[in-house]
């Protein structure tokens, strides 16, 4: 479902493809207005299932996908994450935290001049790999980095 949603955004400028999809029954008309929340992907309890949920399968490592995270988080409640894709024709970026109860944190589709870049702030329950996944020309790419979540304050 998510794959089709992405196609929709990407082809928002190419009306004919869209009309074709609707005609072919691949899309319900409501999906054109607002994609349904990808419950399967967000509810997945491990990274592999979450990746499957967004249609990414096993993404390829890419040096052109830049993931900026702090090495150490002073607190896991807010971990700043920046993702920049230098992969041509990137249309979407997703962010995952391997060890969170639900690894998929967020997924963004870009169109109409939006650069394939996003910054967000995530919760992390513990030290974990953070992954960025980008989609470009139908292929999925990934980059990952570890963020150490520390115990802070007086602990009382």
């Amino acid at each position, binding site marked *: 479902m998510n794959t089709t949603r992405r196609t929709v955004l990407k082809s928002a400028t190419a009306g004919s493809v869209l009309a074709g999809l609707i005609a072919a029954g691949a899309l319900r008309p409501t999906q054109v207005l607002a994609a349904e929340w*990808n419950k399967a992907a967000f509810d997945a309890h491990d990274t592999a299932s979450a990746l499957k949920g967004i249609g990414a399968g096993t993404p390829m490592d890419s040096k052109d996908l830049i993931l900026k995270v702090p090495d150490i988080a002073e607190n896991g409640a807010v971990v700043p994450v920046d993702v920049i894709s230098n992969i041509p024709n990137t249309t979407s970026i997703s962010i995952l935290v391997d060890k969170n109860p639900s690894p998929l*944190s*967020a997924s963004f*589709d*870009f169109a*109409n*001049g939006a650069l394939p870049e996003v910054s967000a702030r995530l*919760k992390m329950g513990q030290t974990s790999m953070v992954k960025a996944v980008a989609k470009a020309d139908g292929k999925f790419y990934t980059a990952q980095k570890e963020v150490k979540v520390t115990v802070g304050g007086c602990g009382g």
Partner: protein
Amino acid sequence: MADPMKIRAQLKGDVAEIRVLMGHAMETGQRKDAAGKTIPPHFIQSLTVEVGGKKVVEGQVGTSVSRNPVFGFKVKGAKAGDKVVVSWVDNKGDKRTDEAAVA
């Protein structure tokens, strides 16, 4: 009612840098209150950003986005004065739309 969003859209060259701050609990559904009762999940699920009448970003988010979320995007080809409209919808159906102009 949810707090109004804080939207900043600043033009650098022909790229608008958009920063959005949303007031939301982003409750995971895994926390317990003082009485030990589980607090039900309450979180933003989707957001959209429009610039100059065109949808530029469509996002879906889960419970692991921090409380009072902050997002940053960049949009090429924007002009000063372009209207930036940001909307979000949460899992309870609450929603909010706010706007600002590219400066």
